[in-house]
């Protein structure tokens, strides 16, 4: 399917284009789109962001989305927050990035501030204590499930070095409770070197 403009339309740039290459979203549209996906995002915003950006608004193809998310995933910081800024800036520069960022972070932050105030006042009430105790147990369970999901591809490949690194980081942070910076400043170069050597050996 060709997306080239028909010759008759190529002379004027303000002629509205059809369907998939819809006009880029404006600042307000970016803010509200990200606010909406963020407020819908219970237990993680990513699936909602993918649905809104790729399927609903068709602002990006699935491949473009994956590529953008991959970039935001290997950079530090909250991935989906990084994605909002990068995504917004693709369309409207720095302002677009800020608009998407504020849409994603602002409304749920206000909501969480409200919850924080409620917790500060009522957090010691026995009924609420029991409810929160139950929720935090379940929340830890969800985290454990995520860890095992992410581990499956690593286990299937049966390569020892990444597994050793994974366990070492787990032990250093979870058991020894060493500071994150120190552990990562050692672990990242080691993991880079190991991965590089493994890829080189696999290629030869």
């Amino acid at each position, binding site marked *: 399917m060709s997306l080239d403009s028909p010759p008759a339309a190529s002379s004027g740039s303000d002629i509205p284009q059809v369907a998939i290459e819809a006009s880029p979203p404006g600042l307000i549209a970016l803010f509200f789109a990200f606010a909406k996906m963020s407020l819908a995002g219970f237990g993680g915003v990513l699936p909602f962001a993918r649905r809104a950006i790729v399927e609903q608004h068709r602002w990006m193809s699935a491949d473009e989305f994956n590529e953008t998310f991959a*970039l935001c995933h290997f950079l530090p910081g909250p991935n989906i927050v990084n994605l909002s800024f990068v995504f917004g800036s693709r369309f409207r520069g720095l302002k677009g990035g800020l608009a998407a960022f504020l849409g994603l972070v602002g409304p749920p932050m206000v909501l969480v*501030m409200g919850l*924080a105030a409620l917790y500060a006042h009522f957090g010691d009430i026995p009924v609420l204590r029991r409810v929160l105790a139950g929720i*935090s*147990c*379940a*929340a830890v369970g*969800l*985290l454990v499930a995520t860890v095992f999901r992410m581990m499956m591809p690593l286990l299937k490949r049966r390569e020892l070095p990444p597994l050793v690194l994974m366990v070492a980081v787990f032990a250093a942070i979870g058991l020894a409770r060493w500071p994150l910076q120190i552990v990562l400043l050692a672990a*990242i170069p080691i993991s880079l070197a190991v991965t590089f050597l493994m890829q080189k050996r696999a290629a030869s």
Partner: protein
Amino acid sequence: MNTDGNPIWALVATFGLMSLFAVGGANAAIPEMHRIAVDVHHWLTDKQFADVFAISQLSPGPNVLIVTLIGYAVAGLTGAFAATIAMCLPTAVLAYVVSGLLKGSTGARWPSLIRTSLVPLSIGLMGASALVVGQAADGTWAAVVLTLAAAALAFATKVNPLWILLAGGCLGLVGLV
């Protein structure tokens, strides 16, 4: 280093620096948040940390908003705002800059190399997160069983996580954990 004088600056410095090391997202930085908020600064107790983790998982929006709750406990609304912006904005701007630099060089080798080498580290970090919060949350055997059941359910089925959290809350309400 005396950061006790102004808690806002302590929050900004803590989370601004932490975000740069949050490889694999907010949930990977949980142990570091616990270490600093509970062990170093005594902003929260162990139980309160488990509580704010639960609240942040229950709320809509990115999981990183646990820092909003920590910030609020330290310095009210200003603290909540400062902690959130410090944790979110610098790395978002960094991502913006890097994505600009990488434009047109898709398929380059080193991003994939970096990504592959970071995966085991971020899994290890998230495992540590589960352990650290688990130790704070799971004080009884019933609590441990509830955690394991939630983990098995979330791993084996596609049940919406929100239902699992709410079910945990109900079991807590009737006094099972």
